[in-house]
């Protein structure tokens, strides 16, 4: 993508990382991920990694012949409302907006976060101060220059509680809680931006001041609510479908929510160079996945937003279609409410764990498109992942443990899961069938999201899907720390919490991995969750679509996509 010169003032941890990489103490992938997060440019990281390991580092977006100009890329996707990217809750909204306005950073198809509207970022040693060096020469479509003022304006909006942006919690370190009295005199708490949290250093440099250490700032800047709008966005109505000023290569020309969105390439050269497509047409084919297949079959679409794993076999049967995939740290876990009987019985949970064959579930429910899980919610895709001895299914052990737990005749309980996407109930059904042999008689209760989500952290035993996060500690912090905001299992273990704190403060990857190994082992041994697999995501295209690769968050990076007609 962008060719960023080597930034001299890298994070102090980088040389150390490089050393570890060279010594083979960390994997190349881990190095890349951590290094880029700390401010090393991707190219630099790749170059460095290549130099250090002797491998040739080539990004996944490989050349596929010589690009042709022109053409209309027809994309099947839910056409969600495009109003204010900052408050959007849907990746689909982000994908529409992304063609018009652009982020400061972008997570590439290889999981690596790169500067986008920035030339580079630099974090302080304590990870509390982040300096963003903005790209120069980028123009807004109305002719204005893109600069620090725009970025500051966006941060201001994100952190303003009135905006209601999810970015406020992503950059929680830049805010503090205030208490106000409402009309009835009751105390109302809300978060507001810290004084001086965003500092405009010069026209193309912005510095962020955080109250606490935060490693994931670049990834947050690459998330879909962090698309940068023009500084006059609010004055022009705060609605992207009306005020269509952007830095992106396309402009929104026709749009009907729920039906279609048409993007036409803007006049002039985009700052990333040639953009091949003349037009992108987003077509909403509705919630029925078979409609999309029919649309592919009759040549009505060229690419879809995402391909459900259940669609793949059908897609593969249609000539001229290619199913692209990429592994992710997205997963789903079946978790016990460990504070509730009978799940407070550790033996019982371990018996359950012993009855699971993770690879088999992956095969049945996800057609083997992923990596088997290890019941500790840290992904091999994470830089700080520590490899543990693989889990093995052992029905006899399971039976024995179950008997020891006080259920020699087996046990029956409810298992709640949401009805869509379909891989979730499928996974649950595979689990139910699998553990039956060990004496677990599970009553699967498949409920609609409307029933499931209001009580999602309340069910005694249920299945929840989790999206991927940059670092191995992030999900455990949310989900398994005592009193964690999303601690659905109510797991509480001071030792685990302490290790989490320790890992959070450890930048040295090897050190961190050592801590992570303990952390992972604790959760695995406590058998709080069954995590069947880490799943891949898929996108289907026709053969005509070139220059495409799946981005793990399913972002649509179409600048270099072209149609081979």
């Amino acid at each position, binding site marked *: 993508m962008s060719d960023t010169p080597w930034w001299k003032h890298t994070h102090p941890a980088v040389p150390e990382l490089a050393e570890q990489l060279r010594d083979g103490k960390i994997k190349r992938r881990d190095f890349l991920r951590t290094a880029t997060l700390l401010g090393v440019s991707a190219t630099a990281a790749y170059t460095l990694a290549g130099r250090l390991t002797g491998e040739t580092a080539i990004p996944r977006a490989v050349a596929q012949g010589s690009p042709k100009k022109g053409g209309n890329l*027809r994309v099947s996707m839910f056409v*969600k*409302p495009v*109003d204010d990217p900052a408050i959007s*809750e849907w990746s689909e909204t982000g994908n529409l907006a992304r063609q018009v306005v652009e982020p400061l950073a972008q997570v590439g198809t290889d999981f690596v976060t790169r500067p986008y509207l920035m030339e580079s970022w630099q974090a302080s040693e304590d990870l509390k101060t982040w300096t963003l060096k903005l790209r120069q020469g980028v123009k807004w479509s109305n002719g204005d220059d893109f600069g620090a003022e725009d970025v500051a304006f966006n941060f201001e909006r994100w952190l303003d509680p009135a905006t209601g942006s999810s970015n406020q919690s992503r950059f929680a370190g830049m805010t503090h809680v205030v208490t106000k009295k409402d009309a009835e005199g009751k105390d*109302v*708490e809300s978060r507001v931006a810290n004084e001086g949290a965003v500092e405009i250093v010069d026209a193309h440099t912005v510095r962020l001041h955080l109250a606490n250490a935060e490693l994931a700032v670049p990834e947050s800047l690459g998330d879909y609510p962090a698309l940068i709008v023009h500084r006059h966005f609010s004055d022009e109505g705060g609605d992207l479908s009306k005020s269509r000023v952007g830095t992106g290569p396309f402009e929104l020309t026709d749009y*009907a*929510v*729920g*039906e*279609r969105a048409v993007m036409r390439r803007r006049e002039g050269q985009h700052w990333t160079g040639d953009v091949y497509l003349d037009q992108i*047409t987003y*077509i*909403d*084919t*509705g*919630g*029925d996945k*078979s*409609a*999309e*297949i*029919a*649309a*592919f*079959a*009759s040549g*009505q679409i060229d690419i879809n937003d995402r391909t459900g794993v259940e669609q793949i076999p059908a897609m593969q049967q*249609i000539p001229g279609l290619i199913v692209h995939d990429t592994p992710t740290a997205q997963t789903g876990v079946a978790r016990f409410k460990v504070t509730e009987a009978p799940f407070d019985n550790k033996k019982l949970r371990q018996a359950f764990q012993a009855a699971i064959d993770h690879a088999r579930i992956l095969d049945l429910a996800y057609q083997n498109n992923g990596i088997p899980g290890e019941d500790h919610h840290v992904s091999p895709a994470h830089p700080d992942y520590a490899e543990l001895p693989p889990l093995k299914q052992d029905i006899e052990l399971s039976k024995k443990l179950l008997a020891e737990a006080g259920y020699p005749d087996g046990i029956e309980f409810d298992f709640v899961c949401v009805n869509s996407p379909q891989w979730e109930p499928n996974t649950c059904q595979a689990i139910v069938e699998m553990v039956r042999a060990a004496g677990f008689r599970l009553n699967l209760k498949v409920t*609609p999201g*409307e029933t499931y*989500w*209001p009580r*999602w952290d309340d069910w005694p035993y249920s299945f929840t899907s989790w999206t991927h996060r940059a670092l191995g500690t992030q999900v455990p912090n949310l989900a398994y720390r005592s009193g964690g905001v999303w601690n659905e299992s109510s797991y509480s273990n001071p030792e685990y919490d302490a290790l989490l704190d320790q890992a959070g403060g450890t930048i040295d990857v090897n050190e961190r991995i050592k801590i992570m190994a303990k952390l992972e082992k604790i959760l695995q041994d406590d058998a709080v969750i069954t995590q069947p697999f880490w799943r891949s995501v898929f996108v289907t295209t026709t053969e005509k679509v070139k220059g495409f690769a799946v981005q793990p968050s399913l972002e649509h990076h179409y600048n270099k996509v072209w149609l081979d007609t």
Partner: protein
Amino acid sequence: MAILILKRIGTMALMMLVVSLIVFLLLEIDKESVAVKVLGVFTTEEQRRLWLEANGYFEPLYLRYFSWLAGFVTGDLGESTVFRVPVSEILWPRLANTAILGVLAMLVLIPLSLLLGVFAGMREGSLQDRAISVVSIITTSVPEFASGIFLVAVFVVGLHLLPGTSTMIEGFDLTQLVLPVAVLVIYDFGYVTRMTRASMAEVMMTPYIRTAVLKGLPFRRVIVRHALRNALIAPFTVIMLQINWLLSGVIVVELLFAYKGFGTLLLEAALNGDIFVIEACTMVAVFVAVATQTIADLGYTLLNPRIRFT
């Protein structure tokens, strides 16, 4: 007649009022759930309370109902929580799309089923009667989702003859409506055909047809002049009721073919808890149903001199 029309319209208004009350109570009596639906599951109680306060949800229920109703009557249908636009902005175009689909389906369905029905009922028990009856009973037994899947498998995936979805992105395209209309007609024509057949057969048994035959009229004249008019009174009502049914039938078809109509709007709204869209869609659907029922009643009166002249 004018009185009758006024009376029917009065009944209709009363009906709509009651329906509106039901819809309102069903969806809005629990204001907490309204807030959850509008603001999302992950909002705090505080946020919901503020929203409820701002939107007047702490008023007494009957006041809420009246202001809601007033909004409805004046065309303020609220805002879609999923689409974040006023409901009327999406509802009317979607309804128009469904109307196109519905009218096309009716244009195929009505002549087809009346023709077959009359043809079968004309000579009850004949070979043509048996054949038509068998076909119509079989097609009626196949659910729309099944015939839809098969038609797609055959005509789209297998033969590449027809477009698989009907999103109408490149503008109106009649070929995209072939399969949706086919699915609707296949499921429904059997019913109307059978009703027409039964009605025709019954008329053919009546003494006045005997009178006409024994008057020495040619068979054609007996059928066209004497039988048809009487035989078509019952199917007329049935056909008008199909409009009500069509509002249901389009849901499956629109979903299957990604047609941007009223049915998918309602279904998606229902699945996403898009409460104001559900309300508006339901009210519109019921209005269409009640209106067609009213028209059916009035038409029945017009068609049937026995009622018209008493």
